[in-house]
């Protein structure tokens, strides 16, 4: 395997459950050391895609390579190099985080130091408490800690911060950034746009089993040819409009304000954000939205 080979390569991936096609031809690559995000609403096919890459599910078609392995073969050599945070998993109840980490660390050939993992995942105070007494957020930190304890090269994070309070989320982001600095490759799924924006080098927006857009979070919006103009109207309410060329609108707004002898409040001219692109791409069809 050459140094430039991608950590993850997915070509024309398909997955059907009976008649239902959950994944309908997905392609992407994740370079070594990159943080790649799969962004999309629930049921878009994110988790199915990730679980195929993790080796939990078989695929109906397409090519998948993870660190040079076909994950469907479930080679132990691959699992020794991969850390997984699933969307929901349980842990034994009558065990402490320190014991759990020590136990799982020993399955890997070159584990990280357990005390260090406890520290970076924010579990110092709960390291010796039974898992059954941990809160949802604390259990999620343990999930992350267990994924890191084998010192993996590639880490899958399926909605890693769901259920976190804002402080815990920031902390998790710091951990993920520190992993990136260590040169780890990360595949993240999320439906938080700020999370994708804050962490990912590149994101793919997924809906109905297909990738609708792919690129750096900042560029996805900038690639759009439209501008978004927002301002505070004379009655004090915020207004906004999106258009290709804002020149005429800006002229109109400024002259109207000058004529009234007022200043124009809260004026902004922006390219659509990742959020705008996301909402536009993942919007339900009108009739579906009415039915839903």
């Amino acid at each position, binding site marked *: 395997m050459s140094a430039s080979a991608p950590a993850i390569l997915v070509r024309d991936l398909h997955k059907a459950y009976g008649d239902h096609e959950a994944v309908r031809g997905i392609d992407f690559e994740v370079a070594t050391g990159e943080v790649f995000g799969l962004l999309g609403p629930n049921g878009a096919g994110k988790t199915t895609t990730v679980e195929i890459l993790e080796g939990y599910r078989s695929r109906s078609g397409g090519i998948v390579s993870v660190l040079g392995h076909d994950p469907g073969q479930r080679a*132990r050599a691959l699992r020794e190099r991969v850390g997984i945070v699933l969307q929901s998993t349980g842990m034994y109840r009558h065990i402490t985080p320190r014991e759990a980490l020590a136990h799982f660390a020993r399955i890997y050939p070159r584990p990280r130091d357990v005390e260090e993992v406890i520290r970076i995942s924010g579990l110092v105070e709960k390291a010796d408490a039974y898992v059954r007494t941990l809160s949802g957020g604390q259990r999620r930190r343990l999930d992350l800690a267990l994924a890191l304890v084998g010192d993996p090269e590639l880490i899958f994070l399926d909605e890693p911060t769901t259920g976190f309070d804002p402080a815990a989320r920031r902390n998790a982001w710091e951990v993920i950034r520190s992993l990136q600095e260590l040169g780890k490759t990360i595949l993240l799924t999320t439906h938080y746009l700020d999370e994708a924006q804050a962490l990912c080098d590149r994101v793919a927006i997924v809906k109905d089993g297909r990738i609708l857009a792919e690129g750096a979070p900042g560029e996805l919006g900038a690639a759009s040819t439209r501008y978004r103009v927002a301002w505070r109207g004379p009655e004090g309410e915020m207004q906004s409009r999106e258009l290709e060329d804002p020149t005429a609108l800006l002229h109109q707004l400024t002259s109207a304000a000058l004529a009234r002898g007022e200043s124009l409040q809260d004026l902004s001219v922006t390219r659509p954000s990742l959020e705008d692109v996301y909402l536009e791409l993942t919007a339900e069809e009108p009739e579906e939205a009415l039915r839903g």
Partner: protein
Amino acid sequence: MADAVVIAYRQWRLERRMFWRNPTAAFFSFVLPLLFLFLFGAIFSNDQETLDVIVPGILGLSVMSTTFSALAMNITFLREEGVLKRIHGTPMPPVSYLAGVAANAVSNAAFQVVIVVLAGRLFFGIGWPKDWLELAVFAVVGVATLAALGVAFSHVIPNFDAAPAYTNIVFLPVIFISGVFYDVDTAPQFLTDIARVLPLTHVIDGFSAAMVSGAALSDHVGDLAVVAAWGAFGAIFAVRGFSWESRRS
């Protein structure tokens, strides 16, 4: 290979530690057979013939409840909780995991054997087992078979809410038919015929020979063969059909 054995050993140690931390499970495993022994001991205290049947029977019941029932329920619980799925994402060799879990059940069964043998000697006039080797052989083969059948049976159980019902609908008829509380040969013919097919009957026959009558192991090769056949059947289904994820997800 050596590595897989070491991992299995560590899994077993972890299971032991967790077992003692869950007082309800620990209580049930050890108090239930004692309770049965003392109840029947009190009822039949003057009837040595019946005690001779019941004490090995209670040992069979205890072994089945700590292996078959406990494993069927635990595996279902761990599967539904997602613990199995997590383990499946690590480099843990599946064989090591299953061996560690089964060894935990075997440890509990070993405790039961000690408790019942001691109680038989101290309170029920049975004396020390006549044939220790025979007792050990039937304990090992019986426990391994019932453990494998417990893991295999967990595949049939749809979810944890249903686990006690599924487990007991097998456990309760089997302990009655297999002659835990009476001598199988005195039962109606159709029940005797069913009993002769079930593994627990033959495990209890072996215990009875080893503890009470002293009939030689060579006279009970047939019993051993039936139990081993069930064991092979259970082991194949336990491993081949093993599912790491609940069907709900």
